[in-house]
């Protein structure tokens, strides 16, 4: 029943989301872009929030996912452009990449882990930038239209707009393309996966390792393998996100692999709330909204983003959602303390 309620409410939320941001100045495609990037952020939260690993190189999985998806369509199988094949190859390649890189990085801790992931991301940026034959260098891959989505007998062009339906202040249904519906379904699935994963035996163990790695090793868990699994799952989701982004935008350039992109995932997660299910999506939405909507109004949007980031870290150290949750925990604790006789002098 709880699962049913989760899926129903989340689906409802995803259905109304684009119409909520419309009156705030969000254009039709923004909702789709937010969900696509949000998938990577949700995966990143598994690392930062649940495994306690600050990766500063997620852009490599995001960017490579995008490149592999578009190259599958334009270069590897141009005679059979297939949507699912593009996604599958992108995710498979990135998963393998995360496995190999992960085996090296999970040996390290804290700042060294962050720096090594950053170094790998820089290497991939360089490869993509310099391998002109394959990637077109700094021009990137342009104008590669996404193959239709095939579902059994159906073949759906995701760029088709929904039928016109005036929704007053919330815009028009035709502002949205089928892309949004598809990405919303994927997001729902990813949220469901993450919800199950966190409550699972794997999530429980990962949390234990995060809380006390030394103890965990000496009760018999292998911390490196758990961290590696988290790194690979996060990498795969980031690759999926990148592939969707490439297919949606019909283009990709090396900027998808920059340090700034990696940093964005950190910022989105921290602002929304680490170790919360919806926090990463909320943070992604909030900051991307600012980046896209406020930047059209003022050049100072970077400053605004910075002020929000600082304010969240100082005043809401658990992120927006994390702080709400911790507040209720704090209330519970206060209640418990009041119920206990004075123990301290």
């Amino acid at each position, binding site marked *: 029943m709880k699962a049913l309620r989760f899926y129903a409410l989340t689906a409802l939320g995803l259905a109304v989301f684009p119409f909520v941001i419309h009156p705030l100045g969000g254009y039709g495609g923004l909702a789709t872009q937010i969900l696509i990037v949000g998938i990577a952020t949700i995966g990143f939260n598994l690392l930062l929030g649940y495994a306690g690993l600050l990766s500063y190189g997620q852009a490599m999985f995001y960017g490579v996912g995008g490149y592999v998806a578009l190259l599958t369509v334009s270069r590897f199988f141009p005679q059979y452009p297939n949507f699912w094949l593009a996604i599958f190859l992108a995710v498979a390649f990135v998963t393998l990449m995360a496995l190999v890189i992960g085996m090296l990085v999970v040996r390290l801790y804290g700042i060294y882990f962050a720096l090594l992931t950053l170094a790998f991301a820089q290497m991939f940026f360089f490869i993509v930038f310099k391998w002109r034959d394959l990637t077109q260098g700094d021009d990137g891959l342009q104008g590669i239209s996404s193959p239709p989505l095939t579902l059994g007998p159906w073949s759906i062009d995701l760029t088709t707009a929904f039928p016109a339906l005036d929704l007053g202040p919330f815009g028009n249904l035709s502002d949205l393309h089928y892309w949004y519906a598809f990405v919303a379904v994927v997001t729902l699935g990813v949220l469901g996966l993450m919800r*199950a*994963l966190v*409550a*699972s*035996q*794997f*999530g*429980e*163990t990962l949390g*234990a390792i995060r*809380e*006390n790695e*030394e*103890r*965990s*090793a*000496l*009760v*018999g*868990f*292998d*911390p490196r*393998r*758990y961290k590696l*699994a988290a790194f690979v*799952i996060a990498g795969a989701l980031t690759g999926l996100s990148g592939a969707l982004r490439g297919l949606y935008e019909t283009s990709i350039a090396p900027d998808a692999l920059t340090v700034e992109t990696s940093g964005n995932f950190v910022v989105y997660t921290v602002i929304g709330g680490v170790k919360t299910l919806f926090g990463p999506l909320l943070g992604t939405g909030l900051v991307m909204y600012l980046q896209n909507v406020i930047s059209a109004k003022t050049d100072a949007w970077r400053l605004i983003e910075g002020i929000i980031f600082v304010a969240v870290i100082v005043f809401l150290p658990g992120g927006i959602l994390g702080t709400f949750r911790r507040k209720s925990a704090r209330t519970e604790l206060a209640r418990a303390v009041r119920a206990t006789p004075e123990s301290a002098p």
Partner: protein
Amino acid sequence: MSDAILETKGLGKRFGAFAANSDIDFSVREGELRAVIGPNGAGKTTFFNMLSGITPATDGEIYFLGERITQLAGPRRVARGIAKAFQTANIYPDETVLQNCRLAALAHVSGSFALEVFRSSRRLAEVDRVAHEALGLVDLATLAGARAGDLSHGDKKRLDIAIALATKPRILLLDEPVAGMSLEEVNKTDTLIRGLAKRMTVLLIEHDMTMIMGISDSITVLHQGKILAEGTPAEIRANARVQEAYLGGHTEGHV
């Protein structure tokens, strides 16, 4: 020697030019309660860390039930049956007391790695059974629902032992189990360890000589990283070299 559960041959640990442990030939029988004592800096904790796999040995070999485990990683040694409680209680402070033991029991039941990303550990009745049993052994059952970080010092140390017990060990390494405890807590832990020694092999480091002399089947004395003497409590008490080592160093021991 054939009934040794844990044995070391020429075991040593060098940190650069400094040898924390060297030439340790050590053997414990199954079911024995053995104390390892020595002045501060004698290398007791380093020795334990090599046995549990926290620190790799630089020389020599370690055998558990006849199998060479010198290169085996810590988590795998736990799976074989070597568990350790730490000098400073090493627990999961934000989890409940019961969950601390459940995690250890989970590792025992599921092994060092299980990619169970959809199913909860609650399906494993064995985990709860083992966890409750461990808590019962250390007399913490009434505090099962408390947050581990809120326990008293003595209870934290007993919880640490319970965590080790929930891995279902054959040999239990206890690093100063009564350090910093009140007299009442020391007596309680003394009784606990005597009870545990009936079920498994216990190896303990301790400074509390009254306790050591009363509880141990035999004692190994480390001094400057090497074995200085070995014998029954009476033999160790009468050993002139042991007395000299203690009196020449720190006098806190009161042998």
